[in-house]
């Protein structure tokens, strides 16, 4: 059971940071709070005493997102369902809709925030691989005396291990900024015990951009989750694909590479087999997503040939 003495809903970031500064030890900042109550149960946290819960979802400026040049700024209140339902986000972040479709379920996605998923830093966190492909950075705020200071860290560096991040005591994550990649094909692969509400055994995100004729790969980005203590970006494969014409042989060749990254504590052989299939599928599905628009039909055909 969860025991809490005070539930706080600050209206501004400054207020939230001030509340956090004076909060007794063991207090927590929550956004969607969807990971909090499952934690406070037998077999995990058990009966837990959280003196103060600081709910940041009503903080002014934490809802919504905006385009800042070539980057999308997703405020801390952005929930997973938005990646599935907001047509502009679907266009700008083309691997996030699939990621969202596989994340928990429709009900939890309406509460669960992207930023909470990043800060929780689960090795199987579904949002992490696509964020890596989108070159995401996370913005965190703290109080320096009376001034609100922010700093930004790439998500790839921010997550340091299972449940571990560079977030310091007194800091609150305020936004995630990532590349706007309209025109890329995006995909997300996930395997677990069932479709909805399942923790990934392995997940893989991809973004692919081809030239106008759909022949040559201009840019490819791949990342894996669930295969070790933290998500990983597959830069070696990306290099091998860039500037190349995609063929079945090339995809088969690069698919063999990431097995060595599998550093999980369990089901290593299974994960290696899955990773190999996922890298190929992720590239092909990303191409297929490009083909939907009709202008890049040749890329998928080339692969299928």
């Amino acid at each position, binding site marked *: 059971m969860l025991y809490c003495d*005070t539930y706080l809903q600050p209206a501004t970031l400054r207020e939230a940071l001030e509340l956090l500064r004076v909060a007794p030890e063991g207090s927590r900042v929550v956004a969607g*709070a969807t990971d909090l*109550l499952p934690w406070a149960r*037998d077999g995990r946290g058990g009966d837990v005493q959280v003196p103060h819960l600081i709910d940041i979802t009503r903080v002014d400026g934490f809802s919504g997102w905006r385009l800042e040049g070539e980057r999308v700024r997703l405020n801390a209140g952005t929930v997973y369902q938005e990646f599935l339902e907001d047509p502009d986000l679907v266009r700008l972040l083309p691997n996030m809709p699939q990621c969202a*479709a596989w994340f928990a379920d*429709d009900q*939890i996605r309406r509460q669960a925030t992207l930023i909470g998923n990043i800060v929780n830093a689960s090795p199987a966190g579904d949002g992490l691989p696509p964020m890596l492909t989108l070159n995401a950075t996370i913005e965190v705020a703290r109080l320096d005396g009376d001034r609100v200071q922010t700093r930004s860290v790439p998500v790839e560096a921010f997550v340091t291990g299972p449940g571990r991040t560079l977030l310091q005591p007194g800091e609150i994550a305020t936004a995630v900024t990532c590349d706007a990649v309209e025109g890329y094909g995006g995909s997300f692969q996930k395997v677990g015990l069932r479709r*909805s509400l399942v923790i990934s055994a392995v997940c893989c995100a991809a973004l692919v951009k081809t030239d106008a004729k759909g022949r040559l790969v201009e840019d490819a980005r791949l990342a894996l989750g669930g295969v070790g203590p933290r998500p990983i970006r597959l830069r070696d494969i990306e290099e091998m694909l860039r500037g190349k014409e995609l063929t079945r042989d090339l995809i088969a060749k690069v698919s063999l590479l990431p097995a060595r990254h599998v550093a999980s504590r369990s089901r290593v052989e299974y994960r290696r087999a899955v990773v190999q299939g996922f890298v190929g599928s992720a590239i092909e599905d990303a191409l297929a997503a490009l083909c939907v628009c*009709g202008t890049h039909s040749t890329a998928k055909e080339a692969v299928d040939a």
Partner: protein
Amino acid sequence: MPDTLTHPTVTAVTLDLTINGRRQRVQADPGARLLDVLRDGLMLTGAKEGCGAGECGTCSVFVDGKLIKSCLMPAAKAQGAEVETVEGLARTGDLTAVQKAFHKTGASQCGYCIPGMVMAATATLRDNPDADIEEIKERMGGNICRCTGYSKIFEAVEIARDVIAGRLPHTALDPEAVGNSFIGHNTRRLDAPSKVTGRLRYAGDMVMPGMLHMQVLRSPHAHAKIVSIDTTEAEAYPGVHCVLTCDDVPGEDGFGVFVEDQPVMARDKVRHVGEAVAAVAADSVRTAREAMALIRVEYDELPGLFDPEDALKSGAPVIHDYAADNVVKHIPVRKGDIAAGFSAADVILEESFSTQQVEHAYLEPEAGLAYVDHDGVVTVVSPSQNITHHRHMLSHIIAKPINKVRFIMSPVGGGFGGKEDMIYQGMLALAAMKTRRPVKLVFTREESFVASAKRHPSRTRCRMGLTKAGRITAVEFEMLSDGGAYGMSSEGVMRKAAILSCGPYEIENLKVDTKVVYTNNTPSGAFRTFGGMQAQFATESMMDMAAERLGMDPFEIRRVNMMRAGSLTHTQQKLASAAIDRVLDAAEGASGWEKGAPSVRGESRGDLDGPGTRRPCTLGARVRETATDRFRP
């Protein structure tokens, strides 16, 4: 205000909510969940707690128009919100189209998932009135049902969708005519309206004035001697009304379906992780849990048995004194002469099979409410699947004549055999007798997993002799099952496994032995098919392997051996009729099976991917649609 919500040491928060269109002000513990406020504070028990961890969807409600899982939402988070529960859907009494459709198709069985399912279906059609079946499935993916297999639920949502859209007339929601016979017709369930509206009260939904809350201290050890139990501090904890141990049992302690080998609470030793050791009844669940943490139990760990083979070895630890060999039951069946049968065989196949432990995972965790009525009758309300037997057992446990013991069967939110064992009703009765107050206990999902019986894990060795024509000449069948720490339904499960062992085939010579032993694993008990599944898995696999070995069609080899009118069963009962021939014909037709030996697998088979074949599971119905819409010229 019920006493579950506000703990004396914390300051309650005042929540202003609009609930089903009415403004309500409620006090709640700052750590309370929205589900607690709805159920305990506002008595809106249509939202259920199936798991408490966001996995099952029995607690789904709308908050500001968005469907959410109320077990995951701190109540304070909903401050100022508009909340709509299942009770709000049919406020005027007339069921909504979704509710009527659930009633029509028989989508509600045990009903425990149904309020959440109705809410998820409602949300789906509110969000997209034209959702196709794939999108419906995807949008409802957060809600679990264990009875229906979902078909009837999805059928209902599609009918409701079409009625709402005007593609089907409202009469599509009316019951079908049954004519002169109910057989062969869809008849509507009488209890469906109470389930689709959330009105039906399960044991965990019931409250009584002055009701106390029970929590159970469970063993962390698989096998250990209990040296001492010190309840002094727990007894003295403010708000505690009683602490129970086995010393509180006034009569003859012991229950079980066949052998009464299980004490109400562990006596002298614990035999599995999760076994009840002590119980506390207090003003609130929280007080009971805090007091429970003050009970000191000193254990002396004993070597444990975790593998049924080990249980049979000489010198193995003995789990129950009465069964020095650890055998709960051995069922032998003999027919004909197996030596002669095997010598007449052209081929002999031998194979081993194993099946695993399975949890029933009914959506309703165990719950009960006990009280002593004005006539001194000890009354237990619970979703027991065996109340008459429970009543008799409780009578000797509490040393009262049978007319002073009453069991009331509350609606069973899924049982599947898992609620046949009296694993908590005894504690509730004792607490009610000791405190003279009504006492309620609701298991958490985790508690249900560790304390309730499971499907027997089994190991089967099967030896089968056949002629070249596929006729079985002899079978030797040995099954060893893990009964876990207590007997429960094990004996019956072994009988059924033995009786059904060799399947619906007429076998002249057979030797069948099914045996179940004690271990320190979670007890095994009744579970749908009651041992039949484990046996059939072995026998039907043998039939397929025999067909492959003999180059026969698997339907054909079954027809060669099937029981007919006049056949003698394995236990030598003469059958007046048999239906397996028609079952095989129907299965063969429906499956589109490509005739021949089952030696060709994979893509070259002609019977794969035919009409009616289920597509692989995937997600993304909306993603694909969005992409298509976006680029549509």
